């Protein structure tokens, strides 16, 4: 869609775009280019500029067991937390959409967790799931040694998954509910007249109609699980124990700013960028029809 009526003096028009162009050049395109440059070069230990090493940085990263461990951890984290957050949100939204008495309450409250900063809720969950105080301590008293995120990698992974899912249930809920409410009521009522029950209507009418939203949320949840997990990991487990929760962004941060390995961190950033671009392309292929930019 294009405007029929426009303003003639287009030199002024460009001026309006200049602030944003400056910002994205300085803080987006330059750093992105810099990341590519660093990933292909190696910084000399005592200054003297970077030397060209081609794809060596990528080779050394991809042959590093720690890096593959980090990718596996990220995938497990993304898979389980996305599945959990979406499934719970889907059920809650579908039920809220039945509009029984009191459903306004859920519409209001279920969104709250999404407003909370990831590190803040991480600290809350660190306490709630602490093995020695909090509530898991009760379980530990019955089965000693059952739960200890400080020592057991699987427990640590479970804790960050719980914290992340708790936040994103609220987010997914908003989108699912909006999608359900966009379905014309008459459609549901007609189906009910034909004798289909609530479950049948959900499976055959509502679910197919919200698939674009499902795909959209799937991609957003996975991308967010790469980024928004940083605060949760940093507060709850700091990548431990034994790298069990060393997710990709956390590893970029610790390699780049604690290990001062800019080239290695840049190469990891490039891989993560490619991954996210691939996801975004998938998203556009699926939801193309739903986006009405033009």
């Amino acid at each position, binding site marked *: 869609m294009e405007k029929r009526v426009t303003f003639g*003096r287009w030199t002024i028009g460009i001026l309006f775009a200049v602030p*944003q162009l400056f910002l994205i050049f300085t803080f987006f395109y330059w750093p992105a280019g810099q990341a590519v440059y660093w990933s292909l070069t190696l910084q000399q230990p005592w200054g003297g500029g970077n030397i060209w090493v081609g794809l060596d940085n990528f080779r050394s990263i991809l042959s590093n067991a720690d890096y593959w461990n980090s990718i596996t951890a990220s995938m497990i984290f993304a898979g389980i937390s996305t599945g959990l957050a979406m499934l719970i949100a889907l059920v809650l939204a579908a039920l809220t959409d039945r509009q029984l008495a009191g459903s306004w309450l859920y519409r209001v409250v*279920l969104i709250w967790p999404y407003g909370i*900063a990831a590190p803040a809720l991480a600290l809350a969950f660190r306490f709630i799931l602490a093995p020695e*105080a909090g509530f898991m301590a009760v379980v530990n008293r019955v089965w000693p040694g059952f739960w200890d995120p400080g020592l057991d990698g699987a427990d640590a992974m479970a804790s960050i998954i719980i914290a992340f899912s708790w936040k994103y249930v609220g987010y997914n809920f908003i989108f699912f509910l909006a999608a359900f409410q966009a379905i014309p009521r008459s459609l549901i009522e007609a189906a*009910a007249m034909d004798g289909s029950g609530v479950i049948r209507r959900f499976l055959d009418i509502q679910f197919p109609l919200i698939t674009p939203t499902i795909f959209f949320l799937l991609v957003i949840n996975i991308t967010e699980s790469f980024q928004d997990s940083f605060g949760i990991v940093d507060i709850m487990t700091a990548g431990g124990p034994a790298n069990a929760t060393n997710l990709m962004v956390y590893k970029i941060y610790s390699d780049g700013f604690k290990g001062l390995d800019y080239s290695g961190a840049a190469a990891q950033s490039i891989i993560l960028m490619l991954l996210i671009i691939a996801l975004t392309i998938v998203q556009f292929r699926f939801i193309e029809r739903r986006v009405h930019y033009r």
Partner: protein
Amino acid sequence: MVERTPILNFLTHLILFAGFVFCVTPFVIVAIAASHNLKDVNDVPMSLLPGSDFWVNIKTAWTTADLGPKLLNSFIMAFGVAAGKVIVSALTAFSIVYFRYPGRMLIFWLIFITLMLPLEVRIVPTYAVVANVLEPYQTIMDLTGLSWLIEKISGVQVQLSLGLLNSYSGLILPLVATATGTFLYRQFFLTVPDELTEAARMDGAGALRFFIDILLPLSRNNMAALGTIMFLWAWNQYLWPLLITTDQSHAMAVTELKQLIPNVGGAPEWHIAMAGTLIIMLPPLIVVVLMQRWFVRGLIATEK
């Protein structure tokens, strides 16, 4: 609803209530833990009846983590990002929608691509840029021979340097440099009827007058939605402030949470930690509760 389904209705209420409990319990536990003293908070199981030390703990957390100035910093940053987004995006969207000039689609795509790569992913090089924002321009001048030319002519060696670490602009600007808001405005501008523009032009309004007197007042809803979302988003930023603010005077509330984790050797002061968590999660929660309409609208419109 359409039919009578008493059993299903009962189940619906049951599951929804479980969801409600699932969402609210962490808030409640944090609040209760914040009201206990050191001994009670470490009891197994912790008593769910509130203790009496709530205000003491809040006060202790406030002073240990020095939350007053930190909260102020967070506010400044979140307001800065929200305001920056609301203004800069409106300008760009106006340019893209209401003008025809060569390279317009290129600009559109240049901005569009920034949606793909979040800050977290390109964090290391962005940090380097903020350490000296003029570095890109210095490099360009060096590569094009411009700095050599200037040195030859005027004898001045060009050495551009402006560090933004530990400054509000260094915190805010990189967060403003994405496209979320631009597309929200663009979609809205495209729905503004052409007749309005025609009428304005007939009355002799130029581009700037039309923008300020007609387009901006019409976009008030969008601004509220975008502002709310961006405020929360900026308030909740963690990784970026953690890197940029090495100096305590610019630290954010959210990055201060780390000081509150009870350390392994010391006393498990969970009551203080939870009091601090409560203080830090309260402002965004208040924004969500009060601005719920805008928040939901902004979320769905920006698809962020």
